[in-house]
């Protein structure tokens, strides 16, 4: 009976089925995050595991509760909550108390995602707002960094650069591999690049955003480096340190909160890059990737509006 009804049912387009649905895309993102996850676990050990697990579990539970409370269909297979939780945990310090991590994750899902309408409706990147919320709420715990492998308290590379404490700056190869202090999933440049390339290969993200983002940072810091006499070391240091690579590949390419047009994505990347350099060199914080992306999230509708393509055959405005 039902089969017959199904056969007679004519749904609206698209009629062609493709494996590119949200669960598959989310699984690819999780796969792409795997190298950074393994590096984080190897470098920071058990405390990092605690933060990651509490973030993911809290995001998952918050998602379920929100869907239930709002009477929406529970489609947890989309794994999007897990991705948000995982991304948030990657930009938190490894020694953060796990209840704070869980709180930030719940905040990201409940306030930033579901109160704005749920999957696909949020204005801001939930993971980054989760981080901003935690940084504003618990400034001491959120700036407590530890060295990889031995857990000794130390400053991040960008912190050393900002405070000019006289501590030696880490070598570029250390930044590349990830044996420096920093957030759980952001220290290892190579791991993030592998994940980012996988996403590019699978076609989930557009090369324009990371290229224009990283390119802007590189160009601006190269100019500053030349003036200061830092040479090629200086822009490369900025490129590899902090959350820049993670932000450029995984946050600034978020499908929901960033522009959809090609030109818009380039503008978005350039805007993010300029803001990062501005905050790092002139602002009060050592790192500004999260805020730069959040600020550009705000202007995303505007960018989309001014870069949309003219409708073919729509005529010219001047007649």
């Amino acid at each position: 009976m039902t089969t017959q009804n199904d056969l007679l049912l004519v749904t609206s387009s698209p009629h062609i089925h493709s494996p590119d649905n949200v669960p598959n895309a989310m699984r690819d993102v999780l796969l792409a995050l795997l190298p950074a996850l393994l590096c984080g676990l190897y470098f920071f050990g058990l405390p990092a595991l605690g933060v990651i697990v509490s973030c993911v579990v809290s995001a998952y539970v918050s998602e379920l509760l929100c869907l239930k409370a709002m009477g929406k269909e529970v489609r947890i297979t989309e794994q999007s909550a897990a991705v948000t939780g995982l991304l948030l945990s990657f930009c938190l310090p490894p020694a953060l108390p796990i209840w704070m991590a869980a709180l930030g994750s719940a905040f990201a899902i409940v306030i930033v995602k579901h109160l704005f309408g749920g999957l696909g409706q949020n204005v801001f990147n939930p993971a980054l707002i989760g981080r901003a919320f935690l940084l504003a709420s618990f400034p001491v715990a959120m700036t407590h960094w530890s060295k990889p492998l031995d857990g000794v308290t130390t400053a991040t590379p960008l912190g050393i650069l900002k405070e000019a404490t006289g501590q030696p700056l880490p070598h570029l190869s250390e930044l590349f591999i990830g044996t420096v202090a920093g957030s759980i999933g952001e220290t290892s440049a190579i791991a993030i690049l592998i994940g980012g390339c996988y996403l590019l290969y699978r076609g989930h993200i557009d090369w324009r955003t990371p290229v224009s983002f990283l390119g802007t940072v590189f160009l601006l810091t190269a100019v500053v480096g030349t003036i200061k006499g830092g040479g090629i070391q200086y822009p490369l240091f900025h490129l590899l340190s902090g959350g820049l690579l993670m932000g450029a590949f995984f946050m600034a390419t978020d499908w929901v909160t960033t522009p959809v047009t090609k030109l818009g994505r380039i503008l978005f990347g350039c805007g993010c890059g300029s803001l990062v350099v501005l905050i790092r060199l002139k602002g009060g914080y050592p790192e500004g990737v999260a805020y730069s992306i959040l600020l550009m999230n705000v202007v995303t509708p505007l960018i989309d509006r001014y870069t949309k393509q003219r409708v073919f055959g729509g005529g010219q405005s001047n007649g």
Partner: protein
Amino acid sequence: MSLMQEFTKGIIKENPLFRLVLGTCPALAVTTSVENGLGMGAAFTGVLLASNIAISLMRSIIPASVRIPAYVVIIASFVTMTDQLMHAFTPSLYKALGIFIPLIVVNCIILGRAEAFASRNSVLPSIMDALGMGLGFTIALGLVSAFREVLGAGSFLGIQILPESIPAILMILPPGGFITLGCLLALLNKLQKKYAW
């Protein structure tokens, strides 16, 4: 409407902050602690009561074409008096509320009650209206500030009830005000639909 109804309507059914969504500027700015919230509510109620009485008494002699400037002058006189009284008797509260005491002059609830109620009703209903609206606003400010103080500073009326490391400082910063007010509005809308006030 009976006098009692004029009084009670301001508390829940027409609560100025939660139902009419007026006066949100002071509600967001001064609700960082319960003491500030209730202090603001008291100052507000005093000004509203006095201005409602004065405007109700003068409603037949104020020309309709210049009524808004006339209301503002009357309200400003009472605000100036309140400002000076608070400066003299509650200096710490005066300092904490700062610019938001003089700003009661342009508080939309007070101007709104003058225009919508006191200018069309006799003195006794106007008094009841002012008391009800004042109490409603004070309760609303108290509720918002209670959430913010407990979550953001871990204290209630200045008494520490949570360990120092737990409170999320964000809640007593401006974003905390917006989040708290937004969530409370949503919750009350939900309750209103459920119980059909």
